């Protein structure tokens, strides 16, 4: 291609480059949140769409009616409060478990020789390329009362009766940790692999025990990786729907399921919108922390 032709195609390249993705994100990502916010202040109505307008044009004046009943309902009905609390609890415990499994993995992979490192990381990421839904489905067959896990444990005489794991919160924990583990290992590895070995060698030379060196050097230095990994696991886990629905059974109360039921079963769009807005507010601080870590990563600055 010659320069003149390209110049004609893009008279103002800088603004063309900025505006196309920017407009897409504004229209399809930012504005939808404002609409959800608007609907969360409206009243449920038997109509299509099933809610009342919040702005009305009466007597040459626009009147804005903000209806707070949806939000009041969320905070007075114990079902919603419990769903929020239990989502946060399940997400937090799963994140901690993922960190406890993911940190040693990232740590030993970062210590492997470079060629083995790449293969090991590819093997960590590969499952997350295969369908998330299928990986959750795989656990249904393993955790069932007559499933593989119980079969093996019974044959080894470790248990005398099948364990009831499927359709309990335990199954939901296993599912979340399993599905999100690669998202924990990846940022930890990216961080750990950049560490300067000379720091540890210096600590050993000065007589530090391996554990002491790890706690005073490696662990503090990997803070950014820990934060990024925990955010990548915890934020989506709070709103998770598929895993509690397929594995958790009726006892696993999570806010993503509540939102889904309000929307699809009760057709209550205003309440579903209010549930989404409160969830978003809860996640706002972790999302902002994540954004800061991620952007400094993208722009190539070191944290």
């Amino acid at each position, binding site marked *: *291609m010659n320069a003149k032709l390209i110049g004609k195609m893009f008279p103002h390249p800088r603004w063309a480059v900025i505006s196309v*993705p920017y407009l897409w994100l504004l229209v*399809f990502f930012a504005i939808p949140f404002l*609409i959800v916010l608007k609907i969360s202040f409206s009243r449920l109505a038997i109509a299509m769409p099933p809610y009342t307008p919040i702005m009305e044009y009466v007597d040459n004046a626009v009147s804005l009616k903000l209806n707070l009943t949806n939000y009041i309902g969320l905070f007075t009905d114990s079902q919603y409060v419990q769903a929020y609390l239990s989502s946060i609890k399940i997400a937090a415990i799963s994140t901690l478990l993922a960190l406890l499994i993911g940190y040693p993995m990232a740590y*030993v992979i970062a210590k492997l020789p470079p060629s083995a490192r790449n293969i090991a990381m590819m093997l960590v990421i590969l499952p997350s390329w295969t369908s998330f839904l299928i990986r959750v489905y795989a*656990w249904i*067959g393993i955790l069932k009362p007559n499933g593989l896990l119980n079969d093996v444990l019974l044959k080894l005489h470790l248990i005398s009766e099948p364990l009831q794991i499927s359709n309990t919160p335990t199954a939901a924990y296993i599912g979340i940790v399993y599905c999100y583990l690669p998202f924990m290992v990846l940022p930890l590895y990216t961080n750990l692999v950049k560490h300067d070995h000379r720091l540890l060698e210096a600590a050993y030379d000065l007589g530090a025990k391996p554990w002491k060196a790890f706690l005073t050097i490696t662990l503090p230095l990997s803070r950014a990786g820990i934060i990024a990994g925990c955010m990548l696991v915890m934020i989506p886990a709070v709103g998770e729907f598929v895993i509690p629905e397929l594995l958790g059974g009726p006892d696993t109360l999570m806010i993503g399921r509540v*939102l889904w039921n309000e929307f699809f079963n009760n057709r209550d769009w205003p309440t579903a919108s209010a549930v989404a807005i409160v969830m978003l507010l809860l996640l706002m601080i972790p999302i902002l922390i994540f954004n800061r870590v991620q952007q400094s990563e*993208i722009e190539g600055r070191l944290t």
Partner: protein
Amino acid sequence: MSGLIRRWPTWLVLGLGFAFLYLPILVLMFYSFNENKLATVWSGFSLKWYGKLLQNDQMLGAAWISIKIAFCTATAAVVLGTLAALVMTRMRRFPGKTLFGALITAPLVMPEVILGLSVLMLFMSLGEVIGLAPRGVVSIWIAHVTFTLAFVTVVLSSRMAELDKSLEEAAMDLGANRVKVFFLITLPIISPAIISGWLLAFTLSLDDVVVASFVSGPNSTTLPMVIFSSARRGLNPQVNALATIMIVVVSAGAFLAWWLMQREEKRKQRDMQLALQDNG
């Protein structure tokens, strides 16, 4: 041998970690060859579930819809993602860059139920205001481009950030404008990252059940939606067979992408060494 023994903690961690990651998938694939209808009771090798799957028009139709959506999603996400990565890594600050950065990274962690609900509400409002609401394949495509764009942008920006800027600067010193530099220098160098970004967006789109359930309309049931409704009812050997096919195809694709990246990396290192030798 003593090294092997001394490094037992490494092998233990890797062994347990990879067993946890891979055993469930292997078990799932294994039972797709089970002759028994009860997916967890082994009664002999059989390919009959694959045969049944090939006659299942509902699943095959849904698979075709999903592949079409994933193809269009990945293509659009790569084009928009390249532009977004240029904005993130190559442009000095402009008013609104902070908001842009927030909008581009937030979908990475945004719960899918919120994404699905909000995009659907946008389409519903559009329907009220202009009387035209995309429902079905187009609305799924738009929603998928929006959330895969974030992942593609991260992949491409990290590649662009580590790219040697001296090549671009040299081309500009020799009189090429920014557009020409992008097409002749930057684009060829980042092309492996573009391929892996495309594949990532493709698999993410092919995998999504939540967002698609919100925005889909009649005649646009995607494959994950069919799998999900079947999984809710319990185990189904046909799903195991379908899953096995998908896992094999996706792993082959992912391996190809990884191999391309590796080859590029090795070539780069070799070129660097050659350049150093020439200088010396």
